[in-house]
């Protein structure tokens, strides 16, 4: 009996240690991949020989596999999402994704001599990791949190871990969209919202 107990305890110990190791490895790998991607983006941003449009195009090409814009589109509508027809869902996703791409690439194109430092990694639950980073320039430090999730099924055109929200100085891009879309839809229709989104991108 004592032996069985000892074996069980040993097994438990290994599971806990290996489990933690696996999680730590996963985090490290993601961090390496993330920083590599950031370097790629910075190379594109610094290539001032290119025109602004083609630079933006290249930034979008680098960023798209990292982000789950489609999930963000769905979440931004909250419960309203389920009420949409399939057609409207598809149109909304397309518009939202385009808007996000444009908004991101123009923001990132303004980077100048800035560095990204990962200062903390949070794993609140399995399949979710958040990187707390500082965007360091000579003037200031800007705290940006990138939230990743691991989809159950990997999509061929996407990375294993995908960003589903970004918090800049505590302001969550997704939360802000959820709130403003909710308020918009209280007085206006989804078609009007889609028209407003199409004007933005």
């Amino acid at each position, binding site marked *: 009996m004592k032996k069985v107990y000892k074996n069980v305890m040993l097994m438990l110990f290994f599971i806990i240690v290996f489990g933690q190791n696996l999680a730590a490895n996963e985090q490290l790998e993601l961090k390496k991949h993330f920083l590599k991607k950031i370097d790629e983006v910075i190379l594109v941003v610094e290539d001032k020989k290119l025109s602004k449009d083609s630079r933006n195009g290249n930034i979008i090409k680098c960023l798209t596999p990292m982000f789950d814009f489609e999930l963000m589109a769905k979440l931004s509508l909250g419960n309203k999402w389920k009420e949409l027809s399939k057609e409207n869902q598809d149109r909304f996703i397309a518009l939202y994704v385009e808007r996000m791409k444009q*908004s991101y690439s*123009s923001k990132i194109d303004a980077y100048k001599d800035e560095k990204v430092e990962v200062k903390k990694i949070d794993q609140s639950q399995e399949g979710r990791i958040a990187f707390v980073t500082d965007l360091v320039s000579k003037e200031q430090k800007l705290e940006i949190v990138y939230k990743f999730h691991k989809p159950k099924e990997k999509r061929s055109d996407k990375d294993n871990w995908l960003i*589903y929200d970004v918090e800049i100085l505590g302001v969550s891009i997704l939360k*802000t969209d959820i*709130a403003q879309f909710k308020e918009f839809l209280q007085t206006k229709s989804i078609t009007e919202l889609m028209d407003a989104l199409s004007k*933005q991108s």
Partner: protein
Amino acid sequence: MTICLSIILNFAGCSSKNIEKPSAEALYEVKENNAVNGDVEEFSDEFKIEEVYDPFSGYNRFMTGFNDGAYEYVLKPVSKGYKAVLHVEIRESVRNFFNNLYFPMRFANNIFQGKFSYASEEGARFVLNTTVGIAGLFDPAKSCFELQAHEEDFGQTLGFYGVGSGPHIVLPLLGPSNLRDMISLYPDSLLSPIDYNERRYWTLTDTLAEYLEAKSLENVNYMSLNMDRYEKMRKDAVDLYPYLRDVYEQYRNKQIKE
């Protein structure tokens, strides 16, 4: 529980046997829809939106429009002209000068919140920047000694002790605020050398005209250094007022938590 579920599902399967088999496409759609709804539910806890208390939304909306117009037609062109005339290093020095003047406010509010190490860092910054940095025009504390500024104001102090934000209020020209932060402007102004009230101690400005001049210079200078920031942010709004309101409240909550 799982056994029960599987039995029920089995029965459901049996009863649907007689019904026409759905096409593969329809099945795929159902599967995709379930996945999507699952996604929305899986993340719903994380994105529970707390509604901002907003009884003055009519007024706030109007004032946001007014402020946006003031930015577009006054602040922006003036800042552009100012930027064209003055070299960036001079403008950075003007910013440093004003930042240095607000030291008493940051120092006191750090103390009020028990953040003594931040307060002492602020104290060291003030001494260094006022002397070596020539009345705060330069920031050697940061560039040579890596001493960071720690922005704290009375609104954050109240928030730190659990005072809620109250209704959201958009202030003329100053932009988004709330009752807590608006009231806090008064105690902070007592610690600011830029003021128009009669004070027993030294202040940089004494009359309302001087006060407005100094404040205008500070704001135009700030804008000239952060020209695109507001415009880029504004681009992401489908409706400017609730967008700015949410950005402000989330940002303040983060500042209070720090």
